[in-house]
């Protein structure tokens, strides 16, 4: 298991290095001046010159890259031009929002996906299966921005049941912790749905197919012939074997989830990583772009690693492969 883990971590670090190097050079090759984009129109030429010097924008590209790598190795991600504070601080500030958004969405995605997949497998080849399979295909292909806007139109602007933006109400939604928590959940309701629904479609389809395959396995047929209860067969034989495919899908879904986070946070004006990265890109805030890239890359790599480890625990054949 240790060799398996070491191998995966090593590969992950190499990918992260290549990713950040690529983003660094592409980012700097893009036209546009961060000083101009952060209000340079109102500054004199001498002030602009000085700011560009302070940001190191007058240095050769390779010098900037070497300096940046040197800083990152020591845990210093630099200073955000637009936010005017350390990149690390800016990212740490928005992490709770992104984690609560993505975490809640994964849970919801699993609940919806597994429920649809189970029901479809239970009524295999019947009308319910066909309807659920079509539904899961449709929701899998729904773009997150469209879904978000539709949910906003109906449940926020139309029915007034959910807030249309922000992570919390003015003044935190109340005085007690419980009120504050309820307020957060209320604000995250639609964003969770927006992020979870497409992923749930994928999980439903994978889980249905996996469950049907497992149901045809000899050990399930044997258990059934021995008179083991359907509930025990489902929980002890079918679910652990079928869920492996879902975990593998979840690992690959993390990248898509992060992309969805950018859209969802923008649509619902949530203060998370996605919006931070978006703002950084639009204002050419290179240190912040790089910080967000490292973070996003690390999340995808760690997510995949965790999915591999979990899959390995459930199915020892993966560990040996």
């Amino acid at each position, binding site marked *: 298991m240790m060799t398996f883990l070491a191998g995966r971590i090593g590969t992950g670090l190499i990918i992260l290095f290549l990713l950040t190097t690529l983003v660094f050079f592409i980012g700097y090759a*893009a*036209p*546009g*001046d961060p000083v*101009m*984009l*952060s*209000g*340079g*129109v*109102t*500054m*004199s*030429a*001498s*002030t*602009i010159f*000085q*700011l560009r010097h*302070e940001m190191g924008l007058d240095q050769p590209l390779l010098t900037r890259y070497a300096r940046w790598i040197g800083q990152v190795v020591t845990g210093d991600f630099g*200073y955000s031009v*637009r*936010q*005017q*504070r350390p990149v690390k*601080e*800016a990212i740490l*500030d*928005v992490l709770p929002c992104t984690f609560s958004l993505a975490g809640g969405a994964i849970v919801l995605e699993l609940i919806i996906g597994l429920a649809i997949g189970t029901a479809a497998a239970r009524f295999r080849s019947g009308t319910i299966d066909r309807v659920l399979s079509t539904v899961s295909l449709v929701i899998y292909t729904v773009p997150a921005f469209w879904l978000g806007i539709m949910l*906003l139109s109906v449940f*926020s602007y139309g029915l*007034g*049941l*959910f*807030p*249309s*933006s*922000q*992570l*919390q*109400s*003015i*003044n935190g*939604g*109340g005085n007690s912790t419980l009120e504050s928590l*309820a*307020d957060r*959940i*209320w604000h995250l*309701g639609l964003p969770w749905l927006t992020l979870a629904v497409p992923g749930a479609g994928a999980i439903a389809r994978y889980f249905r197919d996996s469950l049907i395959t497992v149901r045809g396995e000899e050990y399930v047929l044997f258990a059934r012939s021995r008179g083991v209860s359907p509930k025990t067969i489902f929980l002890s034989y079918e679910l652990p074997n079928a869920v492996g495919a879902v975990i593998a899908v979840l690992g690959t879904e993390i990248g898509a989830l992060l992309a969805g986070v950018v859209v969802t946070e923008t*649509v619902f*004006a*949530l*203060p*998370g990583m996605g*919006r931070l990265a978006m*703002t950084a890109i*639009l*204002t*050419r805030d290179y240190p912040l772009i790089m910080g967000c890239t490292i973070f996003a890359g690390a999340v995808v790599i760690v997510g995949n690693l965790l999915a591999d480890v979990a899959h390995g625990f459930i199915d020892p054949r993966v560990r040996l492969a």
Partner: protein
Amino acid sequence: MTNHITHHSVRWWVAFAICLMFGILLLYNGCSRKRSSAAKDYVVVGIEGDVDTFNPLYAEDANASDIIDLVFPSMTRTTFDSSRGAITQIPSLARSWEFLNSGKDILFHLRSGARWADGSAVNAEDVQYSYIMYADTSVGSVRQDAASAFLKSGTIPDVRKSIEVKDDSTVIFHFDHLYAGELFDAGLPLLPSHLYEKIERNKIHQDSSLRIPVGAGPFNVKEWKPLQDIILTPNTESTLPHPGRYSQIIFRIIPDYYQRLAQIRSGEIDVLPYIEIADADALIRDKVAVQIYRLGPRFYDAINWNNIDGIEYAKSKGKHIIPNKLFGNKKIRQALTMAINRKQIIDAFFRSYGRVAFSPISPMFRWAYNDSIRPLSYNPDSAKKLFAAAGWKDTDGDGILDKDGKKFSFVLKIPSGNQVRAQIAAIVQEQLKAISVDMKIEQQERGAFWGAIMDKNFDACIAGFNVPLQMQLDELWGGDLQKSRFNIPSFQNIRIDEILAGARQVSQETDYAPQWKEFQRIIEHEQPCTFLYWQTDLVAANNRIHHANIDALGITYNAADWEEAPR
């Protein structure tokens, strides 16, 4: 069988209880939201993006500057006299002042009793210290230029010599020459020296202890939730001029315009800056409880013709300036303006909120605006004649003018994401096609667009500016293209340079009106760019806000006076 039913019942009840809990949660939140909107003692301003910093030394963002004005003290405050169309300075920390030494010095008498939010007194030392910080190159303030007219030691502004502290309540500003902006430059936000002095100067930029500022103005920054909310509360100790009357002014960051619009309709936000004309009409039509305020006009859009050969300029690093082969001739620029129907564009997009522009001086500055000028009118036939007189004819019958083998064909760059500009570009394209001029449109991402413009790597572009309240146009129209980086058309004219230089030497800005009127005549005659329109910005504000005198100065400049309207 009984057990089976019991298990099913339990599961059913658990599911039902969870659904019920969520239902109650939603209802509870919905009801409390309605309750809170009925009894609001705060104002929510919906803004598009987060601010950069509240440190006056480094703030570049417009919203940050507005908030800084509400939080930090200053010697003077700017007001706008709409009858004269001119800005004036009124007392703030300085209760009065007198001009000495033929106007080159100003003696300020400071108000007593002004205190920083932490209880320390605001004194004359703070005034001198603040300007030392602004001028110090190791601090790297974006407002260094405010000290450019101070007395110098060599070539460097000497703030200690320029700002003389006579006693705790008397300060004298010495300038090295007389100019109209003396009071304006003396009105920068003041810094609490007792807090800033603790930090090494070259570390101030990155010091997190200054993130939430300590001011002496009518409001304190209570909380700054990045990408969410900025919450201001009244500074109960403020005497500059008095504590804010609302219990909170909240700047709510909502990037999407349509969400902000929906929220002003629902009453979630109370002030919506820069609302589109059709949406303002709809709010009035639907009897939403808002009032629409007009700002300015302070914004103009123009088609900037590159007057010089941008490639040659870049190749020679600015040393070799030759006229652009297409736009270097003023007759051609006049013809292009005459070929564009600006009135039609304004009628289509801005109605009564737009006005044909002919120079960078806004009609809101009545004292300087030259209303005797009649802008070139739409006349494609005259435009064709001017082209023909300059030797541009369609010799090969392909529908495009040509001269010496070169076709009159160019690219108009516009920044992406602005639908109005994109549509205007399409209209202009059609109108120029009618006089056999070929124009292609290229939309570029904002960063890439400005990169190309600054490098002078363009034929023509649509770009606009918010004009400053002070008549300072050197950066935009000065002939030294290295210094005047925002002279987008790269227009050079000796008389214009003389007028700009003279404007820096007058004691009263309004005394310079004749020269500014001449400036406009030259610009109108030379047509360095085709000024399209002045655009009046609209702001929607809830009727419940009393004294929301939103005008050319901005949206929240008098937020200290805002209060709940009598019901």
